């Protein structure tokens, strides 16, 4: 009998050394579709079981239903709808959707097309003649951030301030009390409070000024069928959208360009078949999604999945990116196939918490990749794999160095 603790598959996935290629570890994880961890939490990694759970009303998104609330949990603050169950979730999401999409505002995303194309165009203009590009800093980050700031009504010049806060908040999402220094969590909480104070100030400015076009102004002054959001609710919502708008699309675009550079024949096709970008984006959401893990949900009551009973109040981790590579669901799941027809992936989740900004993220990515493919001059990867960000949850390269033109 050995007493040396071998790290579990999950621990190895969370370890930074597997960030560049977690997929073989996901395959290992899928041998036990619902795996109980030493700390009593459960990890679910197969497609069928993940989708079953995402449609199960006993799977709670509210930390207050956990027996051991997660570190960094937001119990003091008003939770955003991502961390709420019906009916509170439905009410806040519906009230926010009134200003973002159908049925109340159906034309918003299609109405942004010119704007999106304009921002992409000018960012790529700036890349012309540059032989060394960092796709993240030069393009994939500033593009969605500009978009979400305009949408929300956050002054773009404040970006350097909240960029740091967002980084610290995201760092603390997957805080592990066993392995992480406590400062990581404290920094996250402090940054979250700063960010909320900052957004609260913006909301204050909008009170009593109906007719404002941005989302904050609309939320602050709207009296729809569900009434008006409290300031705390508006701040929580804006906070969620700002972070999501920062941290997910940048990964999708960067992962997309990385994948295209690894599959030059697809990049070549995209130049001549711009329509390809539509199924290609779906395949990216399956093959290299921006969100790999739903780090926690709570069992509201005992939940049976794949013959395993998950006891009430247990923490459940859903490995979305693993589910989208499940060979029992997808034919040749480890192959990047932009022509894939059967592609009901988990890239944006499923069920009532399906990604709020999905349609915008899709259009941003489609426009970005089409234009990058069309306008970059013989782009080549400088390092493969590129350096990755820390997070195993919101996974993507921290930099993507590309050479173009004659180079060297």
């Amino acid at each position, binding site marked *: 009998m050995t007493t040396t603790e071998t790290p579990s598959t999950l621990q190895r996935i969370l370890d930074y050394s597997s960030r560049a290629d977690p997929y073989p570890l996901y395959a290992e994880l899928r041998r036990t579709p619902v795996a109980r961890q030493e700390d009593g939490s459960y990890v679910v990694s197969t497609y069928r079981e993940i*989708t*079953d759970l995402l*449609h*199960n*009303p*006993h799977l*709670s998104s*509210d930390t207050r*239903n956990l027996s051991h609330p997660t570190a960094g949990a937001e119990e003091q603050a008003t939770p955003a709808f991502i961390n709420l*169950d*019906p*009916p509170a979730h*439905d009410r806040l999401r519906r009230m926010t959707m009134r200003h973002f999409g159908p049925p109340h505002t159906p034309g918003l995303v299609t109405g942004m097309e010119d704007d999106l194309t304009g921002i992409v165009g000018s960012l790529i203009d700036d890349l012309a003649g540059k032989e060394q590009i960092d796709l993240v800093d030069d393009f994939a980050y500033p593009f969605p951030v500009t978009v979400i700031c305009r949408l929300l009504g956050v002054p773009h010049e404040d970006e350097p301030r909240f960029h740091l806060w967002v980084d610290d908040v995201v760092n603390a999402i997957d805080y592990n009390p066993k392995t992480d220094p406590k400062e990581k969590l404290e920094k996250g909480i402090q940054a979250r409070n700063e960010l909320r104070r900052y957004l609260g100030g913006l909301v204050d400015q909008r009170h009593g000024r109906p007719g404002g076009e941005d989302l904050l102004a609309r939320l602050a002054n709207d009296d729809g069928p569900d009434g008006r959001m409290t300031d705390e609710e508006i701040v929580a919502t804006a906070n969620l959208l700002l972070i999501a708008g920062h941290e997910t699309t940048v990964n999708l675009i960067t992962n997309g360009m990385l994948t295209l550079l690894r599959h030059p024949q697809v990049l070549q096709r995209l130049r001549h078949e711009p329509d390809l970008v539509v199924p290609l984006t779906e395949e990216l959401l399956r093959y290299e999604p921006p969100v790999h893990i739903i780090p926690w949900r709570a069992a*509201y*009551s*005992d939940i049976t999945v794949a013959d395993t009973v998950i006891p009430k109040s247990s923490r459940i981790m859903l490995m979305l990116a693993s589910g989208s590579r499940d060979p029992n669901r997808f034919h040749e799941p480890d192959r990047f196939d932009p022509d894939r027809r059967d592609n009901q992936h988990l890239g944006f989740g499923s*069920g*009532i918490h399906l990604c709020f900004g999905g349609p915008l993220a899709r259009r941003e990515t489609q426009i970005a990749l089409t234009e990058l493919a069309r306008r970059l001059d013989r782009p080549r990867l400088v390092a493969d794999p590129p350096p990755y960000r820390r997070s195993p949850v919101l996974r993507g390269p921290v930099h993507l160095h590309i050479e173009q033109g004659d180079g060297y």
Partner: protein
Amino acid sequence: MTSADNLQAFKREGRIVVVGASLAGLRAAEALREEGFTGSLTMIGDELGEPYDRPPLSKQVLTGWVPAENTKLPRRREVDAEWLLGVPASGLDLATNHVRLADGREVPFDRVLISTGVRGRPWFVESEAALDGVFVVRTREHAAGLQRALAAGPSRVLVIGAGFTGSEIASICRERDIPVTVAELAPAPLVGALGAMIGEVAADMQRAHGVDLRCGVKVTRLEGDAQGRLRRAHFDDGSTIDTDVAVVALGGVRNTDWLQGSGLAAGVWGIACDTGCRALDLNGLVTDDVFAAGDVARCPNPIYEYRLISLEHWANAVEQAEVAAHNMVSGQADRWPHLSIPRFWSIQFGVNIKSVGVPTFADEVVVTQGSVPDHRFVAAYGYRGRVTAAVSFNNAKWLDHYQALIETAAPSPPPCPAPDQPADAKPVPVDFPGPTLLAQGATVVVTGHDPSERRVTAAYQHR
């Protein structure tokens, strides 16, 4: 057709006839080609024109948004068929394997698929049904006619029957700001399909949207003027209303009349089949070369005690078509049973109503999630302690979970509450107005005494 060689020869150069060229017929034809059937394929349909989709006819067509002729079904692939359209089939001869057409032509087959569907049940007095302004809605011509009548700005529309179609049409009328009266014999709308609890919710929705809803009443007479235009409707409580448009929404009649004398187990309740969509003959024995799919088929469902159930559901038509097509070109060992859980939807008064399972197969119902007053909820149906169905109002994202409960015979009422279950939720009797799963009236007689001579003969009734 027993040996593998025979099957291969049939797939290569056999003759398949599909009677009924609507959704089920088209999807079956596509599936046959997808399965590798390269023989001759003949599509017989009583309506002219390509197969079209019917659900939009009572919704976006009636709002005036989509022209009725713009509902042609998209194709999944080429079917390379001979289309015999505009003439109904009038008979089926299983001794010589021919379909007879109303114009006298005979079409030979090796295997036949029957997907003749249903037609709208007409108003029971023929002269009143013929009045200008009296409609049923089944075909695109019907829908186009009713749309024109609604666009003309009628003073009031009378909808006779508050099932799904009737309720949807009433909803469109209100959306178009047309006064509408709904007359329903049962105590509430939708009650025959979904029971008393949901019926009450449906009644609230109608009244909240300004529908003049009259339940427990029967329309006894439609009265026209000298020009043959509808003017007034009379009810059995002695009251009348002035109206210039009446929509008869009393359900459908299965198109099985043409099968009289064919020897198939076909009647007003449909064509009895096994789960592989093979039709039964009058004696209840499975035939090998005759298949049925869609609204006209009546298949056993193992989940519901193997009862024979016919469903006028869109997804049922598609799925049965695929199963039937597969089985038509497969050997006995490779055949599929059609075992899917029924799914249905209706759009009315701004609410998406969806169901999974068979709500009429239930003795109790309980609200498991959401808020009934807000018209956002899920209700689970149970029969003898297990979940058999669920209905959602604007809560469709949860229904997959209830499908899993049905498939696993999970206990009813579901023991654990969800976060949004109403605090006062408790099971109530489902309360259907009649024995809905029982056939109405005798349709056959049995003769003979010795087991070798016992036989069934059809006893066709006048309706």
